[in-house]
């Protein structure tokens, strides 16, 4: 169903089981800070977070290969996961930009045709 907003283990960039790299992929935070935080939490909570880590590693599915076509798309979906309305606005602004550029081309052609028509008129 929601293939792109799910949490996955990222085995490709994994250091141990891929939970921290998966979280980094999910949130867009650098993986190193998550790992440092994980180690810190392991000491601070005296083992509970280690248990949670293994639980996540056991329950979460692996990231399917070829989920995104390129880093740009990956970044876009990271944005969707954290703030969907902003990403939607981003897509809308892209469409508006395309519309503006198309209107520019249309304007160019229509105005050039009138100029051509004027020249033909002057030749008569």
């Amino acid at each position, binding site marked *: 169903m929601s293939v792109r*907003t799910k949490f996955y283990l990222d085995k490709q960039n994994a250091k141990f089981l891929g939970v921290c790299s998966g979280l980094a992929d999910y949130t867009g935070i650098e993986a190193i800070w998550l790992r440092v935080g994980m180690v810190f939490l392991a000491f601070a909570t005296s083992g509970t977070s280690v248990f949670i880590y293994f639980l996540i590693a056991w329950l979460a599915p692996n990231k399917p290969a070829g989920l995104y076509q390129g880093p740009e798309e990956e970044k876009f979906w990271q944005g969707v996961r954290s703030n969907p309305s902003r990403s*939607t606005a981003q897509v809308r602004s*892209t469409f508006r930009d395309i519309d503006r550029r198309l209107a520019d081309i249309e304007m160019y052609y229509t105005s050039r045709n009138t100029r051509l028509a004027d020249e033909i008129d002057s030749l008569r």
Partner: protein
Amino acid sequence: MEEVFLPITIVGILFVGLPWVIMHYITRWKTAATITGEDEKLLDELYYTARQLEERLLTVERIIAADNPDFRPLSASRQEQSPFDISRRN
């Protein structure tokens, strides 16, 4: 007196304050904006369409600019994205 109050405060913090904070953030998280599977599919398609359209439009603009030297596309005034990607380096 202190022997009585200290356990009460500790128990209060542990069994009332902590769950309160956790529940508060859970409800905050639940009410935050999320998208359903259908929304996601729609957004995926829209994003894909937008990128396709942009690429096609770039091609068209390039062709027009080659045919008519006085035509200057709007996108030409903007910063061109570099094809160099630092994450793809060996």
